């Protein structure tokens, strides 16, 4: 059965897995989505008529730790993929849960950051800087949250034996992994442009 399914994957006009091709197409379109949000942020971040400015409100050491957590989640994700490629379902679940935990830590940190900003006077409607900041980082956080749900879904599928055979399970984990790494890549850009590049 396993060999038959592997062979079926390659009966496409490109000889490639269509679901993986679709995922890369989706990620390409997501580049445009986040590119637009980042462009909007860059346009408006210096336009502050009321409320705090970026320089006054950002906590770089705190966000650096959050960035490190998300980077490490990419490592645990790829170790989960390596585990299932070895046929190690227990290892897969351990690394998937570690990835989900790191993702939840990142989201918890973002919720704390948003709460602090609101308490310090920066809300969605305070200034165009506030609007563009919350929309950009909020959409990224939403993507991370969707990723966490998909990771937990994979854990459930593994427990239910729905990631067998190994080739089929690897394919599913790899697809979710691509999404997760993409979310990490977007944060690499956001961390640099939003937090580290100084405002005028």
């Amino acid at each position: 059965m396993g060999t038959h399914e592997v062979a079926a994957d390659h009966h496409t006009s490109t000889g490639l897995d269509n679901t993986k091709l679709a995922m890369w197409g989706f990620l390409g379109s997501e580049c445009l989505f986040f590119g637009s949000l980042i462009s909007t942020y860059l346009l408006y971040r210096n336009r502050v008529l009321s409320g705090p400015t970026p320089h006054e409100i950002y906590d770089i050491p705190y966000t650096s730790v959050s960035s490190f957590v998300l980077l490490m989640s990419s490592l645990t994700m790829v170790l989960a993929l390596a585990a299932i490629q070895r046929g190690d379902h227990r290892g897969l679940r351990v690394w998937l849960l570690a990835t989900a935990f790191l993702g939840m830590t990142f989201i918890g940190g973002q919720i704390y950051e948003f709460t602090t900003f609101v308490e310090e006077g920066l809300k969605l409607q305070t200034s165009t800087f506030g609007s563009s900041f919350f929309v950009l980082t909020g959409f990224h956080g939403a993507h991370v949250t969707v990723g966490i749900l998909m990771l937990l879904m994979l854990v459930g599928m593994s427990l239910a034996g729905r990631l067998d055979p190994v080739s089929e399970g690897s394919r599913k984990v790899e697809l979710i992994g691509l999404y997760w790494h993409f979310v990490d890549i977007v944060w690499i850009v956001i961390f640099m442009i939003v937090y580290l590049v100084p405002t005028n």
Partner: protein
Amino acid sequence: MSETQTSMEHVQDPHLAQHPTPRKYVNIAIILSIVTALEVAVYYIEAVQDFLVPMLAIMAFVKFVLVAAYFMHLRFDSRIFRRFFVTGVLLAFAVFGIVMWIFFLVGDGPSPTVGG
């Protein structure tokens, strides 16, 4: 199926055979951590403030490429996947360039209010 079932199916896949080992993944993660620490360090160093933006851009680019090439396996997978992704990135840069051109070269920058 046993918990630690080992199948030969994946060994026959030429792309999987080229994937890095877990040890290499850990090494990549260490490099990513060091570059992130450098990014934060240069942010605080007064002496490099004139070159801060290019330095940050280079370091972010290095991290971006490492994650895409090794963790997302673009270095080992079919070139078609790479083209899909690179096209998206280039289009994102095009959107950025067009927006900046419209607002700063044609106009006089965006209005400071959302509605205005």
